[in-house]
């Protein structure tokens, strides 16, 4: 298929359709409205269905019903909307239902603003709703990668029978870049038929009951350990990260994800021209987190620099990875403000000149 110039939001929608998504339930919220708008036009063309829900709460429960009946289904929202969906997300995880959720993050807390942010990192990776569960979280840094990850997200969701969250900041949704959709793409996991789905009980399989209620504590404990085994398998098999320049020698390791990592890569090129050596680890899966890659890469550096569009959330995972073996420095812009390459360059120089204060996580 030829490359097409597409807006990130539309590429996400098209990728979902290419992946076999036939149902979308969502509620309007800036800055991701282009996704439901695209789906409302496109889905009926491929025999699918689009429903504008009365709220994000309802949308997340519509996902539950549709996924429980065995179909590939998606929603998208932005930060405050994801908070409202968190009820449904917990039930989806509890009932082991595969869905894909896209969060085009805006700055918070509360109504916050509508400009790009990474302030939902904790919400995405550390639970984000009641109960003991994890979401598999994918963080693209380009429109092409967003399209690829959305397609993989459907396979991963089906394989693990767990919600998968694609976490993009507002830049991913709004920018236009060339995208190419693979023709005849095969799933990234080997998938089984959904014999567990509630599709009518004819007696040829056990009665399907989609449920997260386990009143017997022994049964619920077994269920919790079953879920834990899935999350452990994700940690074992699904870690993805991108490493730039880690094969060479460098003084500062940058850790950043999403579009911030792209800003950092621009800064790295400029620093290289000035003779300053840096490398970067860019986590693509935020859960499971690439602790080993960060630890390995940090060991070669004098210092680690974490760059985020939050006041410091992913830095806690970097700290867990580095385990106090290297000084960690931090740079952020928040509230919808963006990090510039110049800021990153200045921060790296300050670190090397001993003029940057390290972040104390001891």
């Amino acid at each position, binding site marked *: 298929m030829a490359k097409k110039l597409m807006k990130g939001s539309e590429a996400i929608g098209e990728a979902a359709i290419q992946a076999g998504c036939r*149902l979308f339930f969502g509620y309007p919220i800036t800055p991701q409205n282009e996704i439901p708008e695209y789906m409302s036009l496109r889905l009926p063309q491929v025999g699918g269905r689009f429903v504008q829900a009365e709220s994000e709460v*309802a949308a997340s429960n519509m996902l539950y*019903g549709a996924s429980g009946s065995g179909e590939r289904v998606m929603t998208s929202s932005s930060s405050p909307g994801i908070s409202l969906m968190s009820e449904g997300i917990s039930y989806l995880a509890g009932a082991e239902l595969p869905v894909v959720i896209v969060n085009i993050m805006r700055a918070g807390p509360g109504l916050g603003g509508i400009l790009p942010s990474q302030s939902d990192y904790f919400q995405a990776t550390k639970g984000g709703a009641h109960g003991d569960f994890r979401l598999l979280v994918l963080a693209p840094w380009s429109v092409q990668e967003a399209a690829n990850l959305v397609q993989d997200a459907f396979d991963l969701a089906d394989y693990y029978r767990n919600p998968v969250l694609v976490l993009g900041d507002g830049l991913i949704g709004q920018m236009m870049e060339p995208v190419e959709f693979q023709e005849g793409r095969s799933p990234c996991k080997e998938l089984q038929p959904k014999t567990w789905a*509630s599709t009518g*009980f004819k007696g040829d399989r056990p009665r399907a*009951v989609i449920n997260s*209620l386990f009143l017997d504590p022994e049964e619920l404990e077994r269920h919790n350990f079953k879920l834990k085994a899935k999350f452990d398998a994700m940690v074992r098999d699904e870690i993805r990260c991108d490493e730039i320049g880690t094969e060479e020698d460098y003084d500062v390791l940058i850790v950043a994800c999403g579009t911030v990592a792209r800003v950092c890569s621009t800064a790295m090129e400029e620093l290289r021209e000035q003779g300053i050596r840096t490398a970067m680890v860019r986590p693509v899966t935020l859960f499971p987190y690439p602790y080993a890659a960060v630890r390995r890469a940090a060991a070669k550096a004098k210092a680690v620099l974490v760059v985020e569009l939050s006041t410091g959330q992913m830095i806690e995972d970097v700290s867990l990875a580095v385990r106090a073996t290297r000084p960690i420095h931090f740079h952020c812009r928040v509230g919808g403000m963006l990090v510039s390459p110049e800021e990153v360059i200045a921060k790296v120089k300050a670190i090397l000149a001993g003029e940057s204060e390290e972040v104390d996580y001891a």
Partner: protein
Amino acid sequence: MPETVFQRPESLLPVVTHYCPGCTHGVIHRLVGEVLDELGLRERTVGVAPVGCSVLAYNYFNTDFQEASHGRAPAVATGIKRARPDLIVFTYQGDGDLASIGMAEIVHCANRGEKVTVVFVNNAIYGMTGGQMAPTTMPNQVATTCPLGRDVEQTGHPIRVVELLSTLRTPAFIARAAVHTPLHAVRAKAMLRQAFQHQVEGTCFSMVEVLSTCPTNWGMPPGEACDWVEKNMVPYYPLGVFKTPDDISRAPLPKAQ
């Protein structure tokens, strides 16, 4: 050969329910089961259970089921029906679930005209959590969170869901029934049958509210509870069909140009 004249519907599982003595959930389960049997729908039915006394309904019906979060059964049903329009989808919800926390979901499910059937069991109280005031609790009725009786000055009047939903322009079948006497139960079954029939034909959203008893939380024997329904609930929650899809006065308006 002796002829079997009465047996458990195939749509109900041969299990003992957890419902309190005198509670009419069992009767309503049976009526739904009989209707599913008679219309031949069991094998393509998916039920949606609520949060409340009937949270375990999935253990009692011999059909596929989904257990929804509190109040969201109409949203879950929407998801199932949109995914698989060939399935027969019904929700089974109580008054706390449907008329309080789930009011947005039921209004919009009805207004979208989802081709699902809602069985709404109204016993004027929160049963499972131990007898708290519901939006349907009668004026001056005692509940654990209105121990001196429901004060309508503070809490408003009981919500009449059937009347409220009947104001929507979208075609629907909406009725209210009761099961506190055998005759009422027979009429309730006829309404449930019509409701499911509308779904089979793909006509419209359908809902039957069924006035139910809660002897445990009302604090009275089952017989008195049935009398209480007749004396206190039926006058405020009148029985009958409130809206049918061919109601011409609510025909859709011309499309915007």
